[in-house]
């Protein structure tokens, strides 16, 4: 009897690496990858067009307001100066609005007013024309300090030779209001995660269908364990996605560097104003990458199982439709639970593997605890392994059969009875 030699087989990792290496290179140099890269461009273009049209229509309605809490004379002078400058400077100036609550109220506290997030002001100007003070978040102060000084200078003299310096008075947002604003960060992160995973899972599915079309799958299944094939394919596509994300990231960085102000102007969205997540930006970005990988691996493993059982592209579409709908539902579930931290529904979203990465990413934006992420990641990794194992078992049980060649005794019995 022949003894097993030390190198008579590839380890599961080596086998997965052989598959991953081939798939990575093949996908990277395929037309499909080009379309994958261009994929996000379409929503950006559509969003940009819609944004610019909407922006034109609603420019007045959405213009940024800076409140005035000064004496009535100073307030009137500031408004008049702003109106005088508007034809030349347009949107570079904020809309200056007197704060009604401050009128005739010597005890008006602009800091408390901002911290309570009352009104809809980006910042509030207090003090006098000679020594104005700007109350607001650091970001807003940095943005409006210059324009306020300009307006105050013109309010003091028709043709000013000097402009008063504006005193900053930064406010810290209250815990309650901070939570509210972090929801925005959580929602945006979830949306990004969802779009990316759907894009990628579709790619891994079409890759496997193509492989079945090429009839190479049996060669792979004969040479190495099927779970290694699945793992290799999943990680190859994950690596492809990281290349894609790097390209998109660079493109976005380039675009932002070239015309960040214009983009902010047109879309009304300034990432600088995005509230910091509870775990801090560096950890949040790191968790975002890991949760993206997990969400993709979970959905990809599911799609691989479906793809391996389907015999045609049409069958894949039919089979994958319920999974896509399920994925949409879990996304909505995770999105819905953002506003219900600690609820049974949120726990369910965290426990269910497919929605877990979405729910946990939102949690990273809202809650500062880190240990929960370690637990969730462990659970998600286990779910990936189980899905891959289950998928490969199903493949071996249900796919590798040579049609109805054998004898169906029951059927024959009926026919001859």
């Amino acid at each position, binding site marked *: *009897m*022949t*003894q*097993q*030699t030390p*190198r*008579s*087989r*590839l380890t599961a990792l*080596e*086998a997965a690496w*052989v598959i991953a290496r*081939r798939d990575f290179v*093949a996908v990277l140099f*395929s037309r499909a990858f080009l379309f994958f890269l261009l994929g996000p461009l379409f929503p950006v273009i559509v969003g940009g067009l819609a944004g610019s049209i909407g922006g034109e229509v609603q420019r007045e309605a959405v213009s940024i307001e800076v409140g005035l809490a000064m004496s009535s004379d100073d307030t009137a002078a500031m408004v008049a100066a702003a109106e005088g400058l508007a034809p030349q400077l347009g949107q570079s100036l904020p809309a200056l609005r007197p704060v009604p609550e401050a009128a005739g109220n010597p005890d008006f506290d602009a800091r408390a007013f901002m911290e309570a997030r009352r009104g809809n002001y980006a910042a509030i100007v207090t003090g006098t024309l000679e020594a104005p003070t700007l109350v607001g978040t650091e970001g807003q102060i940095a943005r409006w300090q210059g324009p306020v000084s300009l307006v105050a200078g013109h309010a003091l003299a028709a043709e000013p030779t000097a402009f008063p310096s504006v005193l900053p008075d930064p406010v810290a947002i209250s815990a309650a209001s901070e939570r509210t604003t972090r929801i925005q960060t959580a929602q945006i992160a979830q949306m990004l995660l969802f779009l990316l995973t759907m894009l990628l899972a579709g790619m891994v599915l079409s890759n496997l269908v193509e492989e079945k079309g*090429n*009839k*190479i*799958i*049996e*060669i*792979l*299944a*004969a*040479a*190495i*364990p099927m779970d290694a094939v699945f793992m290799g394919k999943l990680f190859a596509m994950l690596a492809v996605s990281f290349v894609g994300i790097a390209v998109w990231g660079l493109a976005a960085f380039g675009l932002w560097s070239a015309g960040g102000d214009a983009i902010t102007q047109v879309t009304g969205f300034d990432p600088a104003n995005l509230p910091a997540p509870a775990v801090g930006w560096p950890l949040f970005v790191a968790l975002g990458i890991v949760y993206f990988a997990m969400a993709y691996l979970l959905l990809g493993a599911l799609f691989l199982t479906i793809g391996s059982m389907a015999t045609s592209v049409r069958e894949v579409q039919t089979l994958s439709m319920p999974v896509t709908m399920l994925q949409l539902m879990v996304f909505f579930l995770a999105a819905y639970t953002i506003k219900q931290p600690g609820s049974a529904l949120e726990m369910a979203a965290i426990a269910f593997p497919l929605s877990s990465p979405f729910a946990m990413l939102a949690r990273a934006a809202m809650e500062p605890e880190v240990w929960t992420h370690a637990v969730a990641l462990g659970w998600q990794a286990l779910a990936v392994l189980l899905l891959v194992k289950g998928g490969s078992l199903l493949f*071996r*049980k249900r796919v*590798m*059969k*040579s*049609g*109805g*060649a*054998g*004898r*169906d*005794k*029951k059927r*024959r*019995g*009926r026919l*001859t*009875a």
Partner: protein
Amino acid sequence: MDMAVSNHETAGNLGTGWTAQPADARPLAIEARGLVKSFDGTRAVDGVDISVPEGAIYGILGPNGAGKTTTLRMLLGIIDPDEGVRRVFGHDRPHDIGRLIGYLPEERGLYPAMKCVEAIAFMGALRGLPLKEGRRRGAELLERHGLGHAADRQIRQLSKGMAQTVQLLGTLVHQPRLVVLDEPFSGLDAINQGKLELMIRALAEDGVTVIFSTHVIHHAERLCEGVAIIAGGKVPYAGSVEAARDRIPAQVRLETRAREGAWLSFLPPDTRRNGDFLHFPLPESGIEPLLKGLIEGEAGILSLSIERAGLHDAFVAIAGEAAARQLAADNEGAGA
């Protein structure tokens, strides 16, 4: 020579005329006992026993849909049997010795965009051969088989026969000790079939065990030391080619001047006429009594030849007998 093959229901199924031969001294490359596999309530393979000694060329014969591919897939660990055991070079899990095995599936498949040499290297890498070495060996193999000019061509640019050769070379690039080929001759023209036969012989001369399935019997007859005939998921015969041929009586071909006469009573009842010739199995009593009868009956013998049965005849008889027996068993079961 002996294939050391037995079927667990051989004695019951085959009746007289065949007994399992003593075991070969060579170690077994493949040993399978009682393999059973069902798909959706359908028994594709129903208790297959196969033993193949190392270095043999072995044929799995059977009509389309007999269970050949399913049997090979179980032997290779692509699918697991519902019942029974299989061992490849003594290992229960064929994937554990993946480097020793080369497999060409019935449905040929390669990545269309891959270059030939890369495709061969990739197939070697699946079996543990480093890519660099795979490329070197791939180029060498392509050169040796007259495809050196196509080394850097994409698979999609090749003819079907060339692509099939590339895949076969990919099956061999890691120098396996066991090569399993599922219907390797299908889709090849006569010249390429001849080349493939030469390749198989060369492998066996190097000590490689080759197992191939086919429903075209003459390839097996020319190449194999032993065969297993699969019909309806069972193995009604497994043994040497010679023993299979011996199971069928020799065929007599007779040409006579007279068409009618008393001499006809000396011929067996299953005699067939084909033009001027009469065909019938050689009677158990031998040729002498027959000759005497023909001469005394004034048949006027123009020619008489006795031909040993071919593997094809044996295959048709054995597979047909197995199918008839199965049908009878099924009917009996349905009646009960």
